């Protein structure tokens, strides 16, 4: 679903993060029926379950670096790198050192003045903007955000959601957000998705996702 903007809504402990981690291919599924990743078209098909079973973690790493941008609840910035270096990280992993794409993204996310500071000098909201810039800097197919605004005041949260949605619309990136802020997601124009967790056996969590387009 290229360009789709989806939101998983639920209280903490409802399995949102688990679901996003599975989608981001950083959590090994204990059991799965079908999970294939088709970044461009149905023909460009990667069987993620098979990759996990074959321990082909390099394939997963490569898919992540190419197609996925991930925004964590607390930014997940590297404290010893500047904002500029943090933003460049994902892009340079793919294309090697050289070009500086941080300026562009910092301008888009209105943090250009913070480029040469370290994350510790920034406010939480600014850190989230840096995290979004880093998640988008390498032109991913999918942007995954786990509670991107939970640690930010409502006013700022609204602005950041607007910025993020504006950018993914413009870039045609699929957006998947996990949040407990139902109204905020609705106002930002995201489609709500139901996910159900079979809690009968907590050791092997089963997630059923249903989506009405």
């Amino acid at each position, binding site marked *: 679903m290229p360009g789709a903007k989806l939101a998983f809504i639920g209280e903490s402990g409802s399995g949102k*993060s688990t679901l996003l981690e599975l989608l981001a291919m950083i959590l090994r599924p204990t059991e799965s029926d079908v999970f294939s990743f088709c970044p461009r078209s149905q023909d460009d098909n990667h069987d993620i379950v098979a990759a996990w079973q074959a321990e082909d973690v390099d394939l997963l790493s490569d898919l992540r670096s190419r197609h996925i941008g991930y925004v964590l609840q607390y930014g997940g910035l590297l404290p010893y790198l500047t904002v500029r270096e943090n933003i460049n990280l994902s892009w340079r*992993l793919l294309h090697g050192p050289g070009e500086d794409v941080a300026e562009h993204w910092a301008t888009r996310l209105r943090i250009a003045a913070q480029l040469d500071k370290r994350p510790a000098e920034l406010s939480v909201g600014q850190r989230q903007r840096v995290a979004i810039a880093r998640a988008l800097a390498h032109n991913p197919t999918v942007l995954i955000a786990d509670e991107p605004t939970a640690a930010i005041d409502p006013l700022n949260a609204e602005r950041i959601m607007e910025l993020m949605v504006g950018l993914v619309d413009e870039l045609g990136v699929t957006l998947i957000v996990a949040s407990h802020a139902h109204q905020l997601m609705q106002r930002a124009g995201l489609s709500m998705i139901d996910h159900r967790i079979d809690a009968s056996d907590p050791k092997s969590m089963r997630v059923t996702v249903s989506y009405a387009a």
Partner: protein
Amino acid sequence: MSACFVLSLSAVLLPLLVLFGLKFGIIGNLLEPIKQDPRYLQILPAGSGSYGPDWFEAMSARSDVAFIVPRTRAIAATMRLRAQDTDTGRIINVELIPSATGDPVLNGLEPPQGYETVALSKDAADKLGVSAGDTLEGILSRTLGGEQQTELLPLTVTAVASAAAFARDGMFVSNDLLVAVEDFRDGRSVGALGWSGATATEGPRYFAGFRLYARSIDDVAGLRDGLMKQGIDVRSRLADIELVQSLDRNLSIVFWIIAGIAAVGYGLAFGSSVWANIDRKRRDFSVLRLTGFRTRGIVWFPILQAMLTGVLGWLVAALAYFVVQAALNSLFADNVGGASVCRLLPVHFIASLVLTLAAASIAAALGGRRLARLEPSLALREA
């Protein structure tokens, strides 16, 4: 990993280096001279014997023999000396000590050669008022057929041995001169010096004694036993040697125990800090993996970082060690007569670097393996 880590690493390594420095300084520089002392290495024949060229050849071929020269009868091995260029005019009687290249008593001084050059003991040189480079006149007398005969022999002093080397009036001479003096005393002719007398006897020459020095103090016992087995009664300082040996052995054992404990402790201390440092970075590693870095690539990072820290810490410790070494050596300089109490060889620095890198790489590899096995999602949830 920071400057703090580098400093804490060198703080643990420095005492270990100093300890080793003291071990090698004290054992190496204070015991080594004792172990090299010719007085301990010498083996003296107890009586007079008869030793031919074959015997000397066989003895000097032995690996535990450092130096051996023939000695003539003590009664024949003396000479009167008069200094040439001084006003003292004093004549002294000296013992002749056979010498040659490698004589441990001369300790690197130029050995006497042929019939012209000799080395004097300190006492003899002082009494004659001569030093190296001066000339002497040797005076030899014999009574042959009721007639008093005297020969004068011009000699050049090439070296003066230390007072410790020979405590009486003595002159180190070559085998040629020693044999010539014995021949003269025995009434035989010495062609090379133009001295007349009875024709020298044919056949191999036999000597009454020898000057023998073992290669090391550890060789003295075996050498003595070998000579005893040949029926040659000898005197040595085995009792003193055993004292030195046990002192050396026990000191070494004590040092190695302390150093062993310190080295293991150092390895563990450094290894666990590397491990802890890697563990602290779990979240950052997870972020890197989330960004799409390959696991193998980022696991190299802490290993290289640990190595770099190890090398830097080692470097700081080595530099600090030199300061401590200089301080210790100047502090104790008076007590040990200029020898250094603290000293390390290049091989010790290399060994400590290898230990450092081994501890770093083992700990980093274990920590890295743990990181690699970690599900990236787990560390991400640790806020």
